[in-house]
């Protein structure tokens, strides 16, 4: 047996301070309370971070408001150069940021290094170029920024979600107050340092760390003109309610329960890769994860055998090991939810399978898991698990596949695998989802609009479409 020796990425490229304050008006400052952020792979405390209260959020919003006048009237070409500068600094510091992201989030270094960070830099480059071309974007001859954007992001792609929020907001002349997720605040704080390195005017970007309450203060703040949220549908619903009647512009990127549909004429080996990538990428902590595999019954057995064989080669463990495929679950709470839903899956009669896979003693871990014999009535086929757990269902005809795929309140993404072009196009047409990956999965690009139908939210991030959320 060919065993790879451990190949850890060096931690020495990143220096994490023992504590971090809030980044308001270009300065780091203390808050009354703090909380600890840990490495989910070993439960060690990484740093102690300020917990922003209502008065801190007030100060941040006020700083953003003050900065708005200057920033929004700056020529677009000048705003562009700041964003280009930020993009470059991100590229220069990308290994440091990748290691940091893996430490705080638990994701494998090969993903933070090869997926997250390149996309983060690319996102800033893309929107930098829009800053002085907004009148050509199709939103009227004189599109105006909205003002102060309150942005709340999740823990699954901390820096990437920050980029998706901040880059278009700044390009369009808005100023921002961003709240990173409670369990992954560090890369946003490093980004604050990048803003300083780029000499971004104070107050244009403000980072307030904290938990759910901090986020609520921010989205409910009366002087916020725009709310952008990525996270769970439950919280999105609450935000939509709280924003009702205020006139704040709102975009939401919420949960999903994507169907990944494999037809009998699919390129099987690539489909297996797509299934694996669809649900085990980033430990399945992906809102657009292909968490429901819909496989044509005639090839189900063969496909599942291939899938199980492939899953047996997944390497679960130290996120900083360059050969790790599946890292740590982000938090104890998330692990508890995945565990609970998986137990429900088994109780409800679905057949559970995981490859043999030793898990570390400390930290939060969950072996890649599939459930076969799942029907639409099972909770694991309906509820977002947000973990490395795949529900396998079968179908007989294209119509049945489409019906099952759409039979969910969500509508974020979907996958289709077939070598027949006309089938791909017809199925893609009928899927009620904002992103359809045909013969591929989990692909992202700054130029490509991303966002959901139905309860997966509204608004698009990425591409020309992504500007609309920040323009009046």
């Amino acid at each position, binding site marked *: 047996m060919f*065993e*790879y*020796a451990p190949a850890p990425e060096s931690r020495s490229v990143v220096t994490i301070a023992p504590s971090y304050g809030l980044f308001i008006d270009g300065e780091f400052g203390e808050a009354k309370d703090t909380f600890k952020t840990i490495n989910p792979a070993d439960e060690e405390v990484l740093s102690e971070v300020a917990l922003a209260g209502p008065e801190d959020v007030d100060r941040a919003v006020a700083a953003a408001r003050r900065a708005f006048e200057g920033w929004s009237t700056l020529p677009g070409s000048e705003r562009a150069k700041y964003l280009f500068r930020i993009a470059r600094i991100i590229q220069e510091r990308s290994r440091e940021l990748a290691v940091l992201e893996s430490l705080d989030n638990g994701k494998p270094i090969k993903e933070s290094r090869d997926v997250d960070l390149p996309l983060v830099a690319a996102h800033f480059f893309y929107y930098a170029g829009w800053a002085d071309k907004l009148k050509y974007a199709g939103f009227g001859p004189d599109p105006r920024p909205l003002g102060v954007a309150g942005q709340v992001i999740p823990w699954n792609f901390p820096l990437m979600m920050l980029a998706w929020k901040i880059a278009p907001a700044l390009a369009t002349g808005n100023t921002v107050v961003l709240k990173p997720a409670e369990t992954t605040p560090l890369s946003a704080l490093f980004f604050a340092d990048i803003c300083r390195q780029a000499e971004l005017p104070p107050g244009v970007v403000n980072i307030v760390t904290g938990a759910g309450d901090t986020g609520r203060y921010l989205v409910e703040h009366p002087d916020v003109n725009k709310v952008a949220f990525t996270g769970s549908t439950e919280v999105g619903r609450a935000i939509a309610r709280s924003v009702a009647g205020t006139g704040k512009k709102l975009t939401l990127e919420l949960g999903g329960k994507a169907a990944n549909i494999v037809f009998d004429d699919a390129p*099987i*080996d*690539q489909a297996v890769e797509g299934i694996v990538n669809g649900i085990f990428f980033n430990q399945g902590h992906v809102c657009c994860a292909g968490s429901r595999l819909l496989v044509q019954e005639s090839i189900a057995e063969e496909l599942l055998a291939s899938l199980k064989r492939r899953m047996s080669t997944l390497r679960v463990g130290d996120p900083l090991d360059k050969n790790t495929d599946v890292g740590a679950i982000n938090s104890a709470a998330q692990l508890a939810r995945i565990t609970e839903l998986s137990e429900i899956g088994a109780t409800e009669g679905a057949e559970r399978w995981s490859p043999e896979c030793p898990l570390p003693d400390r930290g939060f871990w969950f072996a890649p898991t599939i459930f076969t014999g799942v029907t639409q009535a099972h909770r694991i086929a309906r509820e977002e698990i947000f973990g490395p757990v795949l529900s396998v269902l079968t179908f007989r005809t294209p119509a049945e596949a489409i019906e099952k795929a759409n039979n969910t309140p969500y509508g974020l993404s979907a996958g289709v695998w077939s070598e027949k072009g006309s089938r791909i196009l017809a199925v893609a047409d009928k899927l009620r989802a904002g992103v359809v990956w045909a013969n591929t999965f989990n692909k992202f690009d700054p130029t490509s609009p991303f966002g959901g139908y139905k309860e997966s939210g509204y608004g698009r991030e990425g591409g020309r479409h992504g500007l609309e959320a920040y323009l009046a």
Partner: protein
Amino acid sequence: MTATATSRLSGLPDSASDLRTFLHGLPGVDKVGVEARAAALGTRSVKTTAKAQAIDLAIRMVDLTTLEGADTPGKVRALSAKALRPDPSDPTCPPVAAVCVYPAMVPFAAEVLAGSGVHLASVATAFPSGQAPLDVKLADTRDAVAAGADEIDMVISRGAFLAGDYGKVFDEIVAVKEACGSAHLKVILETGELATYDNVRRASWLAMLAGADFIKTSTGKVPVAATLPVTLIMLEAVRDFRERHGRQVGVKPAGGIRTTKDAIKYLVMINETVGDDWLDPDWFRFGASSLLNDLLMQRTKLTTGHYAGPDYFTLD
């Protein structure tokens, strides 16, 4: 039971049209997907003990090759000597798997290799183009075997394959296999000329159905030789073929593999696609010449702890 039904049940096609139906019924290959997968496997980091193990295995898998018009008995003798003792300064260095030469050169290699356990492979069948009448190809094969080759690397008729004449390609392989007698048959698909991954998969199956002991990517004589995605498809083919027919077939990427880093990527690919059973010189070979010296240099770096230089390794 009819003959057709029998062959269907055994999975062997019994006519040209059946063959076509079968090959075109194989799952398609998505180019972008297979290339992404191959590239991802290429990012595995293999260090320290794993690397040492991989280098020795790779050396044992080398078909040390010279296929030049300028080949002479002296060159072939020297190469064969190197095959037996790749690193004369280090007795722990294993020999390579085989020496691979033109048929006319087989007797000179055989002199050196006799009784050593290092195999003697010869390209035959009007290598590299395959554009010769069948009887010439068969005579070529028989001569090489008679001169001492225990492995034959044949080329398929790419022209016939691309023209859709699968039956002709199939029959030629069957005939050459018969001419090989007890010698192992490696079937060179010349994937660079097949142009698409779908064709690589079909040609792999065609060769295996016709009796190939090994399927091999390339002659090394056309611009595109072995690549990771092509090898991945061939590995998937031998895996699926064994699943279906119970017979294991070997894989040999050849041409363009020059560095240890490249070789290790192939080993990782075997490890994660078909597993242990193919991590063996009996089932996987590298068709290469300059690769060996890079493997030796890396091996020396690991054993001595400092970087090696090319002047310290033989150029035969």
